[in-house]
């Protein structure tokens, strides 16, 4: 392992994680601004130009707040739970390729932190570990609304994880690889959203449910559960949960782009720029959903996941398998 390689890896880690953390600031701003305009308001506009620095101000406020520890909380788990959430979200970001390899200082540098040959399994593993952050946060607070919220959202995440995983398999069948870089390269001429439109729709629905966002934000149904699993969390711990929610949003969006929407491919502009454009559009779609749909009831949510999405993704998988075999 030579020095240049080590520097390259370190630089990429810093860039990717730094990007995710900084981008969260702007995604939060974008969400509030877009949501505001969709609801005929202006949204944040006081701090900085167009309210751009509003999130930083909010972050500072959270940072300064008193850190409250509920007296009956399980202290160790109460501290660990937000950490699990953010670590799994950032770990998942490590395997996403955001551009083809570029030549820097005479070295071919592939634009992702790690090209794991089982990248998709790694992603599924990271998301399934993310459940622990939620369920432990709910349990460790030792309070009834967080517990209910934690159980609800973890049941939801586990249920939708299945359909989400299976909706990715048809693409794996078509490319014959679990590596995200290979899948991305296979879409140079045809994006997988065209032949695998149903898989894409299923993936997007599951991705929204997986990140506990509206209309699937049962975990923090504020009319019934206060704020769900993070009701008792304050200060930096709350900020970590907040951060991991948005980091997760970006990760599932990035996966959707890599697997279905042609990754970094696009005319004229360089790869990473295209990736960024697609990411912003996808996140806009996310916010649009939130502004449009009312929240589902819990039993509707579970029934939809198990009785509609899972069978649909299985049928889609079977059809794809037959077609792939017939085409040889």
């Amino acid at each position, binding site marked *: 392992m030579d020095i240049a390689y080590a520097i390259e890896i370190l630089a990429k880690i810093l860039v990717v994680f730094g990007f995710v953390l900084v981008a969260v600031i702007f995604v939060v701003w974008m969400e509030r601004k877009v949501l505001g305009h969709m609801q005929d308001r202006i949204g944040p506009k006081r701090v900085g130009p167009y309210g751009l620095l509003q999130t930083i101000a909010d972050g500072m406020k959270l940072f300064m707040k008193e850190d409250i520890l509920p007296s009956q909380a399980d202290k160790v788990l109460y501290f660990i739970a937000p950490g699990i959430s953010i670590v799994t979200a950032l770990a998942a970001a490590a395997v996403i390729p955001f551009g083809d390899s570029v030549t820097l200082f005479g070295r071919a540098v592939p634009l992702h932190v790690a090209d794991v040959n089982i990248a998709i399994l790694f992603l599924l593993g990271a998301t399934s570990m993310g459940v622990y952050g939620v*369920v432990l946060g709910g349990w460790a607070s030792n309070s009834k609304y967080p517990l209910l919220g934690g159980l609800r959202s973890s049941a939801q995440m586990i249920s939708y994880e299945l359909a989400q995983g299976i909706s990715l398999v048809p693409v794996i069948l078509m490319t014959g690889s679990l590596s995200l870089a290979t899948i991305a390269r296979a879409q140079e001429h045809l994006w997988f959203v065209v032949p695998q439109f149903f898989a894409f729709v299923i993936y997007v629905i599951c991705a929204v449910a997986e990140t506990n966002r509206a209309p699937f934000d049962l975990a923090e149904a504020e009319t019934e559960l206060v704020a769900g699993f993070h009701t008792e969390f304050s200060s930096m711990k709350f900020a970590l949960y907040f951060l991991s929610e948005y980091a997760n949003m970006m990760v599932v969006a990035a996966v959707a782009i890599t697997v279905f929407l042609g990754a970094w491919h696009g005319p004229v502009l360089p790869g990473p720029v295209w990736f960024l454009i697609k990411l912003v559009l996808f996140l806009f779609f996310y916010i649009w959903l939130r502004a449009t749909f009312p929240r589902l009831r819990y039993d509707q949510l579970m029934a939809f996941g198990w009785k509609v999405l899972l069978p649909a993704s299985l049928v889609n998988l079977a059809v794809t398998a037959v077609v792939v075999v017939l085409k040889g």
Partner: protein
Amino acid sequence: MLEALLFAMFAGTAIGCALGVVFHRNPVHCALLLVGVLLNLAGIFILLHAQFVAALQVIVYAGAIMVLFLFVVMLLNVKGETPLLTPGAAKFFGFLFALIVFVEMLWTVLQPGGDAGAPAAQAPLPAEFGSPAALGRVLYTVWLYPFEITSILLLVAVVGAVVLAKRKFI
């Protein structure tokens, strides 16, 4: 060198977590420590070039089975039992039998000429060893029937769990 270091780290943590599983009072902590054991074993599987099995370990074992465990522990709200261990002679014999099992296993492992000690086939492995493709090839050819039977087993388990959960009394 790095491999030995990683092995020591994973093994040490796994043993520590395993002791915690058995001797911690709070069942929720026990379940989480077991997750710790599973994740460390996944790391060891990667050292052994079993990437797919490691991924399965994380997704299926740590991500699905243990979450189910955690659910049940949280829903039942079982407090740590007092006393923690079985009282009386059962405890003594428990430790004794465990010791005997351990000595037997060590004896088997350390036996000269045994499988474990032998500098077995050191032929270089093919590069795709442990990949999903390689596992699939073996699983769907040599082990096809056991694989199909496993699916029936899982179906039976699902039906059984639903039946048990639906009925008011056993």
